[in-house]
Structures are given as structure tokens and as C-alpha cells.
């Protein structure tokens, strides 16, 4: 069973779909944000003569974001079955939208339609003269009809019910629960600096955003934005304590890590953290916890799921977002400046060799 799950590569397919989805969410998210900032509202349809420019903007963006269940479904099915997965993934995703199964429905639909397409491709054998019918008719028709009907009559209703319940629950949360959720998201989003834990949380908060709950994804990205800046600030705070916490090479790293952080890329600070993993993660996690909690409690809801400082203008409350970044930066900086040991400026070149590296887990390697 474990072997089978590994072979099914659930995570790889989901990540592939997310990688296709992010640019779409960012594009549509910024358009709807501009439209709504100037009073536009997303319309069901644009009737000639009955809308203004900003309503048009909000509607364009809204339509794009409304397609997310279809996009994630198509992406997953494509990842599983390749090009033949696109048609059934798209049809099943639209079925998920139609039955209000939302983003979670889209994810399930993607797996179901993708594996059906793959099964048909693998096990349905046709005579030579019908080979051309395989990709044009047989795969799309069989995989679409089975998975879309499954969506409508089997998965759709319970998933729609669950989605509605989750959405209502999260929207109705008290500030104490918001504080807790924000803190947890803040910690989890930063403990592995863009690694698998971060990506899992990212998939979860994107699901929430597709249901119109923007707080959690904002919390996650603001923590990613603030952490590298926090490490930069730590340099100056440490100077106040007459400590020098970075060597020459690390300072060079920071010069690019901090601007990368401003646009939401946390990975630039990985080399810094690698040099002192425990202290680096402690500082980042404590700062992230506070930043995440601040975001959720003050309600800095961004309509785009990526962009760092560029997310601020899309927020329902940009000042809250700014406050969360400041809190996170200061706390990460302060904690790191305090717990990090003094290092000489001219540190010995770190030995870049195999013995200092983590052992590779054989489970992580796939040889063929």
C-alpha cells in the first residue's frame, strides 16, 4: 500500500498544478484588486452599456479567480496523464464548480479524471485504424463522462457541504482563534524555509483563498516576506549590543536576500540559516508566529497569494499588513541578534564538502 501511494505521487501532481495556478491567481488577483479598490464589483455578466471600467476590471479578475477549481483540476490531471489529461480535468473541474464543490472538489476531480485518463490510455486497446480516435475521442469522452458524473453524483455534494461548513467556520472565528490560526500558520510556513512543510501549508491556505478567505494566505506570505528582512535587521540590532553576528560572506548574502524578501522570496536567506540552523529557525519561527498572528487578528486580507510588499495595495487593510511585516521583522531581528553567537568578521571560508551535509535518505532517490 505504501509503495502504491508513493507511486501515485499525489504531492508532485498537486504541486505541479499549483505551479500552473500561481501566475493565474496573481494576474487575476491584481486585476480584481484594482477594480475593487475603485469601487467596482464583480458582476455575473457584463451587459453592454451597463458597467463602468472598474466593474469591468473586478469582473475580469473575479471570473479568473472563479475558475480556480477548474484550473487546479486541469493541472493535476495534466500532471498525471500528460496532454490527454487536460480535457477530462477541465470538464470535471467545471463540474466541481457547477455543484459548488469548490477548490477541494477541483483537487479531487483532478486526481479522479487524471487517473481515469491514465487508465484508459494504459488499458484500453484499440485496433490500428482507431488509433487516431484514442486521444481525440475515446480518452476525453470516457475519462470526462466517468469523472464528471462521479463529481456530480458522488463526491460533489459532501464536498460542497464540507466546504461550506469550513468556510462558515473560518469566517466566524473569534479573534482568539484567529490569533491561534495565524500563529500556527506563521510558524509552519517558515520552519523549513520554503520546503515541504511550507508547501503543504501553502496548498491548504490557497484552498481557503479560493473560497474567499484571504487571511491565512496573507499570513503565510507576509512571514516569508518579513523573515529575510528580519535577518538583515538583526545585523544592526546586534551592532547595538556590540556584537558581530555575520561574517563577510553572510553579509554579502544578505545584500541580495533582503531585497528578495521584499518581493516575497524567502529562499535567499537559506545560506544564512544553514550556517546556524537551530538559532536561525528559532528566530524565524518566533517572528513568524507573531507576524502571522498579527496578520490574522488585524485582518490584512490580500486578494493575491504572492508578491511581498506588492500585496499591500490589494489588501482590505494595507496598514494591518504593514504592521504585521514590521512586527515580524523586528521580532525575528531582535531574537536572532540576541541568541546568535559572536563571530569574527573574517570568518574562515566555510568548508563546502560532503561531510558537513545531511545524509541523503534513500527513500528520496528514485533511480530508473
Amino acid at each position, binding site marked *: 500500500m505504501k509503495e502504491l501511494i508513493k507511486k501515485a505521487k499525489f504531492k*508532485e*501532481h498537486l*504541486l*505541479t498544478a*499549483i*505551479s500552473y495556478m*500561481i*501566475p493565474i491567481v496573481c494576474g487575476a488577483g491584481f486585476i480584481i484588486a484594482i477594480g475593487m479598490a475603485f469601487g467596482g464589483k464583480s458582476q455575473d455578466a457584463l451587459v453592454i452599456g451597463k458597467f463602468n471600467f472598474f466593474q469591468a476590471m473586478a469582473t475580469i479578475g473575479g471570473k479568473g479567480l472563479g475558475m480556480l477549481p477548474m484550473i487546479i483540476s486541469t493541472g493535476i490531471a*495534466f*500532471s498525471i496523464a500528460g496532454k490527454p489529461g487536460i480535457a477530462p480535468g477541465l470538464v470535471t473541474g467545471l463540474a466541481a464548480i457547477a455543484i459548488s464543490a469548490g477548490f477541494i472538489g477541483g483537487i479531487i476531480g483532478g486526481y479522479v479524471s487524471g487517473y481515469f485518463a491514465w487508465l484508459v490510455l494504459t488499458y484500453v486497446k484499440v485496433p490500428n485504424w482507431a488509433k487516431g480516435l484514442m486521444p481525440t475521442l475515446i480518452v476525453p469522452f470516457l475519462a470526462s463522462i466517468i469523472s464528471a458524473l462521479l463529481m456530480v453524483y458522488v463526491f460533489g455534494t459532501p464536498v460542497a457541504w464540507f466546504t461550506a461548513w469550513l468556510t462558515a467556520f473560518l469566517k466566524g472565528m473569534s479573534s482568539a482563534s484567529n490569533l491561534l490560526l495565524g500563529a500556527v500558520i506563521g510558524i509552519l510556513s517558515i520552519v523549513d524555509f*520554503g*520546503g*515541504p512543510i511550507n*508547501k503543504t501549508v*501553502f496548498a491548504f491556505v490557497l484552498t481557503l483563498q479560493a473560497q474567499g478567505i484571504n487571511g491565512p494566505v496573507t499570513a503565510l506570505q507576509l512571514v516569508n516576506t518579513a523573515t529575510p528582512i528580519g535577518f538583515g535587521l538583526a545585523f544592526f540590532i546586534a551592532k547595538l549590543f556590540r556584537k558581530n553576528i555575520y561574517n563577510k560572506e553572510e553579509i554579502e548574502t544578505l545584500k541580495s536576500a533582503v531585497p*528578495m524578501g521584499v518581493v516575497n*522570496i*524567502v*529562499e*535567499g536567506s*537559506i545560506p544564512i540559516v544553514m550556517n546556524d540552523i537551530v538559532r536561525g529557525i528559532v528566530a524565524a519561527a518566533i517572528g513568524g508566529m507573531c507576524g502571522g498572528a498579527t496578520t490574522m487578528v488585524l485582518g490584512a486580507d490580500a486578494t493575491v497569494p*504572492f508578491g511581498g510588499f506588492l500585496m499591500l495595495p490589494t489588501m482590505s487593510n494595507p496598514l494591518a499588513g504593514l504592521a504585521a511585516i514590521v512586527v515580524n521583522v523586528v521580532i525575528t531581528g531582535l531574537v536572532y541578534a540576541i541568541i546568535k553567537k559572536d563571530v569574527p568578521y573574517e570568518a574562515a571560508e566555510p568548508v*563546502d*564538502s*560532503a561531510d558537513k*551535509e*545531511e*545524509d*541523503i535518505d534513500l527513500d*528520496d*532517490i*528514485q*533511480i*530508473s
Partner: protein
Amino acid sequence: MKIVGVSACTVGIAHTYIAQEKIENAAKKLGDDVKVETQGTIGIENELTKEEIQDADIVLLAVDVKISGEERFEGKKVVKVSTEVAIKSPNKLVAKLHEVAGS
């Protein structure tokens, strides 16, 4: 030894390129001939040519997502890892490649 590879991560703007750099540095240190294609959000860069793939002793895929053109490596010895492994332990990974290619 000749190594060709592809790196690709989820967001496609950071891990992809860090992995590329780490693999190339680690391989060059062992005197390998190395080229890593990146498939980021921007698309394919540093694309591998047919000849390079043909001449390679081993193919390294440091990928978290489905990549395009995986069929190019059919029949070659392929090692697949996540970008995280390539970033955290590039030297050990390249040593492993030598082991696999040698066997």
C-alpha cells in the same frame, strides 16, 4: 563523467535556480562535465541539446513538479530527487551519481 540535469520547483523562481547552481558547483568540483536545464515559471532556460543528452553518462532530475520533455531521457540512467535534496546535500548527491553511473 558527463552529467545533464533538469531542475524545477513549485513556484519556479528560487529553488529551481539554487538547485541548478548547487549541482553545477558540486559536480565541477569533482571534475565532471555538467549542464542543468531550468524549468521555472519563466519557461525553459539553458535547454539541453539532443547531443548533450546523448553523450551524458547520467541524468539528474531535481524536480518537485512534472517537467516537460521527460521523454527525452528515455533509455538513459535517470536519478530523480526533490530540489530540496539537491540544495541540502549537493556533494553527496553527485557522489551518489558517480556510484550509480559506475554500477
